[in-house]
């Protein structure tokens, strides 16, 4: 852990000094040890502020789209985060050549809110980044954690009405603070569809129905793009398990279109693509 932090600082310093990167997106100190923060180091003198510990859960790719295209950025990524990078590159929101990817081989981060380890029931939790330029440590060994979709079993096996009870209770809690979409690295739309008045897709006041409209549409917008980093659920102040819905949509996309999101730079998003031989059975 400390080794990773040191390597991270070392590389950050080198990249900023050499001008290979104008900014290093990593993690910094927060108001206490358990609450680090996303951090953008822009000068060599900032490097000392960089930290890495098990609470650094943030998917730093979230901030990439805030920089103008062409900015040279070095970014620290864990496994899911690297998949986000791949999707953003597929979508041409960032260019491969502008990014120095500092891969962090580390899993089982800790959610500071719950104190629990993040595993593949709340995120993809692959052991190593899928794409990186520099790996800040040795590769983490594979481990049989089962499928990241195993967690869905209970919900999938529920009777339809019971599942509706579950989700309607969850979505009723939503206060529409939009932390989920703002924490999401794929939700770079500004304005979001839900903020618009022509048409107004759903009431601005929270209600089960208007919340559903927002969340279901957002799940659709993330279909085939979500890489299961779990930031939405961690950001949610009222603990709606949004990641479960995202996982389900990802699972369906994988089954129907035979493509796992954020695993290859050559893929095209499944929702802006088609195959003539897609089966009509997917509509049944």
């Amino acid at each position, binding site marked *: 852990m400390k080794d990773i932090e040191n390597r991270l600082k070392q590389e950050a310093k080198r990249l900023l000094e050499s001008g290979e990167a104008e900014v290093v997106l990593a993690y910094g100190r927060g108001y206490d040890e358990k609450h680090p923060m996303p951090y953008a180091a822009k000068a060599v003198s900032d490097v000392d502020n960089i930290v890495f510990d098990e609470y650094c859960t943030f998917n730093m790719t979230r901030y990439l789209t805030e920089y103008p295209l062409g900015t040279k950025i070095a970014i620290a990524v864990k496994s899911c985060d690297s998949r986000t990078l791949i999707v953003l590159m597929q979508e041409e929101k960032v260019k491969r050549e502008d990014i120095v990817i500092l891969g962090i081989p580390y899993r089982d981060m800790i959610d500071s809110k719950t104190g629990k380890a993040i595993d593949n029931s709340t995120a993809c939790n692959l052991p190593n980044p899928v794409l990186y330029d520099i790996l800040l440590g040795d590769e983490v060994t594979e481990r049989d954690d089962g499928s990241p979709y195993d967690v869905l079993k209970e919900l999938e096996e529920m009777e339809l009405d019971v599942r*509706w009870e579950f989700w309607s209770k969850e979505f009723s809690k939503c206060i529409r603070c939009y932390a989920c979409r703002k924490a999401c690295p794929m939700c770079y739309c500004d304005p979001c569809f839900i903020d618009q008045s022509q048409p107004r897709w759903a009431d601005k006041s929270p209600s089960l129905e208007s919340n559903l*409209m927002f969340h279901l549409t957002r799940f659709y917008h993330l*279909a085939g793009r979500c890489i299961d980093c779990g930031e939405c659920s961690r950001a949610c102040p009222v603990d709606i398990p949004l990641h479960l*819905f995202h996982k*389900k949509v990802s699972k369906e*996309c994988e089954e129907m*279109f035979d493509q796992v999101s954020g695993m290859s730079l050559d893929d095209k998003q499944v*929702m802006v693509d*088609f195959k003539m031989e897609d089966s*009509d059975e997917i509509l049944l």
Partner: protein
Amino acid sequence: MEFEPKILGIACNWCTYTGADLAGTTRVQYPHNVRVARVMCSSRVNPAFIFRAFQLGSDGVLIGGCEPGDCHYSTGNYYARRRLAITKKILEFAGLEPERFRVEWISASDGIKFAEVVKEFTEEIRALGPQTKFKVKKDIET
């Protein structure tokens, strides 16, 4: 009173809407429950339209497009197929009966199929009963 389903139909201009016209000109009778809105292509259907339709109290939503390969815009319905498929999965996972959402490819020459689909779908929805899960509850706060 017996439950009369209210079903929203969205038909592409070139195939399904034309097919429905053919059902009309050939006087094929079918239930009155489907109210059709016309779009130029099934690919115009944004999944959010479907979520919205259920909010507005549709008991079922029926989308009709050209047969794959016959899209007037050549590939629109291939995109529609993927999007509407995932839409259906989303609805189902949220807990809505997936049978309430149906996509059919109905060609311009297939007035009979249009009528058959409407008949079958209406009866299925009738059996399911009113859709209350997504429907916006009018506030009756006093």
